[in-house]
């Protein structure tokens, strides 16, 4: 027989247990992304984007490229936008003599955007991509900051910062570190990209 739990027969102790579990689970996957979205910008105009090389501030030398590929996959998987092949992006950056995409001027964004025929350029940085020590265990942690720059004006229309994994409640209390670093990175990329289309 299926017992239907209604608010009326829910005991205070059950409320405490439920709230505790909810609190615990909310701390399992990392913080929700901090996001800025320009309310005046029509994201429906964005049909094609380019993901520029990400600045890598983590100890893993390959983290920037790894996260870039995951971002491209996640962006394509939305089915909303087309993403320019990274090789084409590299060529245009080289043609424009741009060494550091993190330090591009609005004029440079416009030129690169026009050359790649995109409406938006995604830039950003990987702040952490490592296993951090949490008590007696090592937990994978990925922190990602992204900015979407409108190619026509060179202004930021979307920005998000997100940490996935790391010192979660589950890791601190029970030593549960959950997914692999790759899985945490993929989830971070997914959560960050979702904020663009929310």
């Amino acid at each position, binding site marked *: 027989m299926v017992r239907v739990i209604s608010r009326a027969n829910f005991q205070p102790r059950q409320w405490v247990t439920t709230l505790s579990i909810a609190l615990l689970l909310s701390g399992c996957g990392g913080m929700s992304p901090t996001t800025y979205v320009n309310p005046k910008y029509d994201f429906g105009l964005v049909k094609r984007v380019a993901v520029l090389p990400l600045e890598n501030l983590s100890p893993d030398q390959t983290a920037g490229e*790894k996260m870039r590929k995951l971002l491209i*996959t996640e962006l*394509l998987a939305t089915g909303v936008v087309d*993403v320019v092949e990274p090789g084409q992006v590299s060529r*245009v950056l080289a043609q424009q003599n741009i060494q550091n995409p993190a330090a591009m001027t609005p004029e440079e964004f416009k030129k690169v955007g026009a050359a790649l025929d995109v409406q938006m350029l995604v830039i950003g940085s990987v702040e952490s991509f490592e296993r951090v020590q949490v008590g007696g265990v090592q937990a994978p942690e990925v922190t990602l900051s992204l900015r979407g720059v409108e190619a026509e004006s060179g202004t930021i229309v979307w920005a998000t910062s997100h940490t996935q994994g790391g010192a979660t409640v589950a890791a601190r209390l029970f030593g549960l570190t959950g997914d692999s670093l790759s899985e945490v990175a*993929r989830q971070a990329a997914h959560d960050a990209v979702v904020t663009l289309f929310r």
Partner: protein
Amino acid sequence: MSNGSRLASAIGHKLCALVFGVGLALLVGVASTSEGGMRIAILPFQNVSGHVQAPTFITPLLEPALRDRGYDIVEPKALESFLAQRRIRAPNKLSLEQLLALRDQFGAALALMGSIDLFADTAGNPQWGISARLRDIGSGQIVWADAAGFTGDDFTGFLGLGTITFPEQLAVKTVQRLFRNLPAEGMAPDAKRPVPSGPGKASRWVFRSPRLDTDPPKRIAVFPFENGTERRGAALIVDDLLTVGLFQAGRFQVEDPGEVYRGFQFLGFVPYGGIDLETLQVIRDNFGVDAVIVGRVEDYNEGLRPGVSASPSIALDARMLDVRTGEILWMGYHEARAEDSQIVLEFGMIKSMVPLGMKAIAELVATM
């Protein structure tokens, strides 16, 4: 996909299988020489194992394995001088022109090429890994491809008995495994049924364009992968295994690495990592392929280096690009570890790198 298109796709696959089977049977029949079996030229395997002695174990085993199946073999000494005269430095990447010269000089109908991917002469537990493909000399097409690998531990049975401790003995087992699906001379292989695309273990990491259902590329080439690991030659191994994996999936016609190599020699450069539109246009004009696959090997741990996990693991990302538009048709990342298939204790574990790599690649290819 709708039921109608599924049905059409299924019929298409069956027709492809039939045409492939009949084609290969005809090929076997036509190319057989009157005096004996079909003649095969066994090209020296590329040694990426990092162990100079590896070919001395494997090469002598190839000839008898093929003779047992009824094939006639081109005299190795004569072949050696052919390669030296033509200054062929990459015998596992012969162009069609070089293959035709082989046919003219030796009457060979097929050419066996491959690579020794792993050899570890670890005390008490040796390891081998090899991959190979057979090309029809007339067309340059791959007609068979496979890979095999073992550790001595793979044969350990009850009470720890059965472990193969000698590399010579394990090499024999590995070569036997490599050729297990190679049909005997005069026999058509089992009709190849293309593996349909679908979600699998790797699907959560994958983007797949709907165009792969409506207008899929027919002919694809695997371009050299970037090597993001400390293992020298890891990208070469993955290139070969991916070629085998794509051939076995049977959904695309795979350009032989020899033709890709010839194309790069002609162009005078190798697009490493990414490709821009201009290069894609040159590739479209010169290679005759509809799409190319590029990628990067992120992890290639054979479990042999000190200080890292003793069980093998692999991780790679790849993407398929349409050569006409530069559009990304498919993009994916996949990783596999020895323990992924572990049932209990060591049962189910894939302890050797090459079978693990093949498994990861097959799972990735399944999502294309």
